[in-house]
């Protein structure tokens, strides 16, 4: 599967299918700070991502102080 991350923008690839929870664990990403989007839809942490899925991990923490 192809996983797109931001800040900094990068792509990570995995060969096998896995759940969102496992993917976030592998990438050491806190699930409270991101959304996982597959084919334009949000996917919850227990859903299974196919080996050929294209997945976006979107950070949700913004930095503006005012």
């Amino acid at each position, binding site marked *: 599967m192809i996983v797109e991350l931001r800040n900094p923008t990068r792509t990570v690839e995995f060969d096998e299918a896995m759940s969102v929870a496992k993917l976030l664990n592998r990438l050491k990403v806190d699930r409270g700070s991101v*959304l996982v989007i597959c084919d334009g*839809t*949000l996917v919850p942490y227990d859903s299974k991502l196919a080996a050929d899925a294209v997945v976006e991990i*979107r950070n949700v*923490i*913004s*930095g*503006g*102080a*005012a």
Partner: protein
Amino acid sequence: MKCRVCRGPAVIDLKRHNANFCGEHFLRFCNSQVEKAIGEYDMFTKEDKLLVAVSGGKDSLAVWAILIELGYQADGLYIGLGIGDYSDISGQYAKDFAEARDLNLHVVDLVEEYGYDVPNGSKAAKRVPCSACGMSKRHIFDRVALEHGYDVLVTGHNLDDEAAVLFGNVLHWQTDYLARQHPVLPERDGMPRKVKPLVRLDEREMAAYCVVSGIDYMLDECPMSAGNSHLRYKDALNLVEQNSPGTKQAFFHKFLSQGAPFFADAGEEARAELGTCATCGGPTPNDVCAFCRLVERAGGQPVKLTRAPARS
């Protein structure tokens, strides 16, 4: 994972509510949290004219969408801050959002109307960019609200923003800031009321609201925000939240119900010291307000606050 309401497949899990929702019921959940905040803090009514400060980011576009959905009269205000590509692109998101929904968006450009941008203004005034930026935005919010007769200024500050600001104010025991930290700042000397209808929703929920409802928003961060203390406070609170979901919500909302009354006196004192700026007419404890001094140092031109004729 199943939706708490309809038992259909869920798209999001909200740990702090111990609940999962499908797309439709998640959007309804967000709308109801906003309505609850509006009622709980007596923010405004359907008769009020609202001006929503929009940056092109998730929170401000989402709050505007929700208010329209709930039947409020809400126009938008976008301020071009002159922060390179970031400003150009975020402005486009705000304009596209308004155009697609046939909403009224006011646009004010800092460079065109005041003669400086945030990077140069902050250098000239020897302030950190977010301080110069916040000061400029607050002045322009007041100005546009007064000129066009808006009763209430709405911002997209969410629970994470408010908890991080509270954390910073507590770490430094800023009692005057603690006194002012409330989802509603009342109108004063003709300046509009300021409200934060998203205080019951967190950042992840707002980003999810945009994804589920198809709102395109600016994903890149403002380049000025890198490494600022606000982000560090958010990180610290998120660490606690990971192990104890609901901590941020309790921290902020219990401050409002139980902590804030202890700081009311500090707020009264600060308010009593406020006079009127000789240059722009805005509120200030000095002869000339900090914003007008910033404009002067940055080599720009101040603009006087003028009021729209009273509505009948």
